[in-house]
């Protein structure tokens, strides 16, 4: 079975639940008091998809604005970016729009963008209507899903949707729009197991 490594980065305002989503996805665990991410953290998870195994190499970034300048290090070479907002915080939806823009400007050209409206369990204090978010996502041709890391809602589905969007065994071009002269990440590669 072929293993495909897919680099995914999570972007979004601080406190929206990026780390929580990753934690739910990788360890199926939720921690109310998860530490804020400093810089970034790196986790992997392999899931079967069709005839392939998709190994997600997840870079979970820090949300506070002053860490934005580090983001390129993480989204460079990513096959997909998950931009997370908190449905109970309108601000976080605004930040999301900024991220979409930045990805468009500096991100890899063929990057799969997924928009995740997290904390779906807190529907009664919702500030971002689902319809609005969905329409926005459609407008940029992004995946849209509302999730709840706490209740394990739609987290696996989110990554399944990403898997679906990954073109099967193509040879993507190396992106060139780099703002930081850091060592290059290899493009998503495939390798054979055993």
């Amino acid at each position: 079975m072929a293993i495909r490594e897919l680099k995914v980065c999570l972007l979004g305002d601080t406190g929206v639940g990026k780390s929580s989503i990753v934690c739910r996805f990788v360890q199926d665990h939720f921690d109310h008091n998860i530490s804020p991410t400093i810089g970034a953290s790196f986790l992997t998870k392999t899931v079967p998809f069709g005839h392939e195994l998709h190994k997600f190499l997840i870079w979970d970034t820090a949300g506070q604005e002053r860490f934005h300048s580090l983001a390129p290090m993480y989204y460079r070479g990513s096959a997909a970016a998950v931009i997370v907002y908190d449905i109970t915080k309108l601000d976080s939806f605004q930040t999301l729009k900024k991220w979409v823009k930045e990805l468009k400007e500096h991100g890899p050209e063929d990057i799969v963008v997924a928009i995740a409206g997290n904390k779906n369990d807190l529907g009664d204090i919702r500030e971002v209507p689902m319809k609005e978010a969905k329409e926005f996502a459609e407008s940029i041709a992004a995946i849209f899903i509302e999730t709840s890391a706490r209740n394990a809602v739609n987290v696996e589905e989110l990554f399944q949707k990403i898997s679906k969007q990954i073109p099967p065994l193509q040879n993507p071009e190396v992106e060139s729009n780099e703002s930081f002269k850091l060592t290059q990440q290899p493009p998503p590669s495939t390798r054979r197991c055993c």
Partner: protein
Amino acid sequence: MEGTGSPIAALSQSLPPQEVGPTPVNEEEGGGGGADQSPTPLASFEDETTSSSFSSFSSFSSSDVDQPLQTESPSPPEPQPDRTDSTSDGEPCARSWAAPGPKLCGYLDKRGGPLRAWKRRWFVYEEKKSQLFYYRTSQDVTPLGRLNLGSATFTFPLKGEEGSFHIQTPERTYILKAINQETMMYWLQQLQMRRWQYRELLSGGAVSQPASSDTTNNNNNFKDFLPMVKSPQGLVGEEAASQAPPPRTGLANMSIKHPLIEFQNSFHNLLAKHSSQEFSQSVFHVESAPPWTPPSQAADMSPTLQTSPIFPTPSTPSTPSLPLAEPAGQRPLEDGRKSPAVLNTLNSRRSKSRGTMSNIRRETSSADRISRLQQEKDMLGEEVKSQKELVWLLHKALEASQLEKRTCAEFLAAEGEQQRLEVLRHRERQAADLRSRLDDLKTQTEGLRRSLAERDSQVADLQENVDMLTEKNHAKQEVILKISDQLATCMANPQRKVSTSIGLQAQTCSLLQEENENLKDDIAAYKMQNKFLNSEIYQLTKLWRKSSEQEKSLMVKCAYLEASSCQKESRYLGVLQRLQENKTLDPAQRGVVRKLIEDALQGDLTTSVKQASLSYTLLDHDDYGFKILPDYEAEDMKLLAKIQALEIRSHNLLYQDAGDRPLLGRWSQYLASRSDGELCPSPELKNLLRAGIPREYRQQVWRWIVRARTLTIREQHPNRYKQLCDKSLTSPHPASRQILLDLHRTLTTNKHFSAPSSPALQKLQRILLAFSWQNPTIGYCQGLNRLAAVSLLVLQDEEDAFWCLVAVVEVIMPLDYYTKNLVASQADQRVLKDFMAEKLPRLTAHFEEHTIDVSLITFNWFLVGFVENLPSDLLLRVWDAFLYEGTKVLFRYTLALFKYKEEDILKIHDNVEIYQYLRFFTKTVTDGRKLTSIAFTMMNPFPGKILRNRRALHLERLQGELRELEEQQKEFISGSVVRKDKDLDTLLSEDEEEL
């Protein structure tokens, strides 16, 4: 128990102890208070504390010995060996008891039974098991019960009866009473001493000469508390057995609930043919008493009752006082004749018994003989007296008969009837005359007696009058005296009221004095008790200390064992891992290996370890509240993670405190040579800090460093922290929202921060809010919360922690480390890469080969000063040097960390795996000293100048890049407005195409 003389004792062996144990306790000898009445469960205190050799015995000791069924098993399964031979040769055992050291035994009163009355018991201390056995008498073989002293405490009540004291065992409290206070004290001290010796014996094992060495020890100790009371002569010890025998028959002293023991003891006494006189006498009386004593009394063995029928009482001959009562006169004679015969038999019996007993008790028999002779003498004297009385009576009778004879002779001498008649008549007249005279005299005397009585009563009345008058006189005189006294005082003190009150005062004064006396007595008693309790406390603490030392040594042993087990396991897992990597294995072997690995991973490390050891629960969190074992979540690295965790664990267990001791010595020496707070920078201090500050001094030294670092700011604004706190309350900084959001997400694994309501969190909040105004350009940056939290954990004081944060952010770290874009931080990552290339060329090449960007990992190490990246002990050691020397230390340790694991990293040849490894490997560093030595020796030289130059260079470049980027962005924005719709269109169309 072999060779026990008592058949009943032998019978008890057949009874299994567990059948005896749980039978309900029937409180007979029951001590005072409700607390004593409940029998403690089988699992007694003793079971837990004493060695296993004891446990076979515990089922006895825990259930009360006083229960009636228990009396059938009078001694423990392992009885006193000396006791067995004593019973076999028929000697009274309580006396021939051969124990090492002076024997502690004696009569004590024991309170108990349903009546809660004092009962005299013979108490004997037994060394082996530290038990106090009690018997009804010193001659008894079978104890009524026993007290376990191994874990007993002693005290005596203040207001109790004289000589009473309490022995409190885990099962119950015994109330005992010695004959006087001194004896009580003697007993208490002896018991204390013996308890100590016993515990010594238990714990030490090899106590060659416990009695001598420890007694002296104890004597010394007692000097601090109470002088050793000398053994009261004749009241305790073996001689007490013979000198103070208890009343053998006093029914009150009988053990009601131990009829069997009573019987057994009497039976044994019979067998033993105890040579006491009373006993042989009582046997004699059973045989010879019937004429005088009722059968019920015959069985009675009371010596006082026995004596009464033996000797004829003088009252017997006095009853027939009339001269003609012949049979009565004969009886005493008969008795008198009989008594010697009785005495003879008595004597012969005595001599017989003396003959049999002479070998055994020569002294006693000679004393017996004397007393018996004395008794004989008394008896004989008594006899002589009665004989004399008889003689006197006979004399009287003789006199009367002589008179009669004379009259008869006169009567017979008269001639003829007439004359005889005359004589008779004459006599009769005489008689009548005499009779009438007698009557006259009688009435006269009667009259006189009456008048005498009258006079007497008159005299008495008069006397009474006189008495009354004198009394009155006295009272008057007293009143006069009083009044004159008052007058005198009045003269001296013109206020009259005072004088009356003085009278009252005098009264109250005397009352007070009395009370005072009482109180003084009380004080004396309290003092005495206090002294004793002091010694008791001292002793108990000594015992406690010993036990805890033992416990500690066991813990250490346990830790070592666990450490070695951890090491073994980690080695085993390592082997498994290597096997897993081995490609030459066939599939079956591979399967086995996989299975083994799965099994190994299945046992959850923390829980299994927790169950396995006591010490772990203590070490769950370190002194600063950090979890000692980190959690691993890396999916592919579980095996490796477990190996690492095991290594950490074994390392921690082995070097818990051993490694820090010399360091502690160096530090205490260093700090002692300086007056407090007056540390000054020196190479010596630098080296000490690099080695790490012992926990004991860390707070103090950090405070000093922070103070030195922030001196100027603080001098300019003495009340800064308070003002900032107030300001942050009245006008919150925009960053405060983020601060509140992160507050509960700070050091969540640390127990001081894990509880939402913990005071540490509130302190942290105030510190961060204050800092947002201390440095408004930074305001708040994620990561500062961790810096503040560590400062708070070490410094404790909120304001100190605030200044520590200021010192790190504003003084130690370069400018713009935490401001927008974190340029200085990013620059430092480039500086690090330069150093890596220089100091670790192999690793740099390896990283380049696998396109690893270490800054993705190391960026946050620098930003948060390794908080949550290193095990807590190492983290604080890094900070010790970091606070003093600055950021150079972060570089040194970062390089050292890579160096430490260089070989391991070089073995990994996959980009993802390397990242995964780098993400957590810092937490697996076990040998802190090795890391420190790499950081400060291997990485030398590390001149600060080069660091500064490189920083400046990279910062400049970065800022240039940033400017470029900003320009690009501006361009993009202006352009994007135009392209926006088009862009979306293309994106959409592309998507559609793909789908």
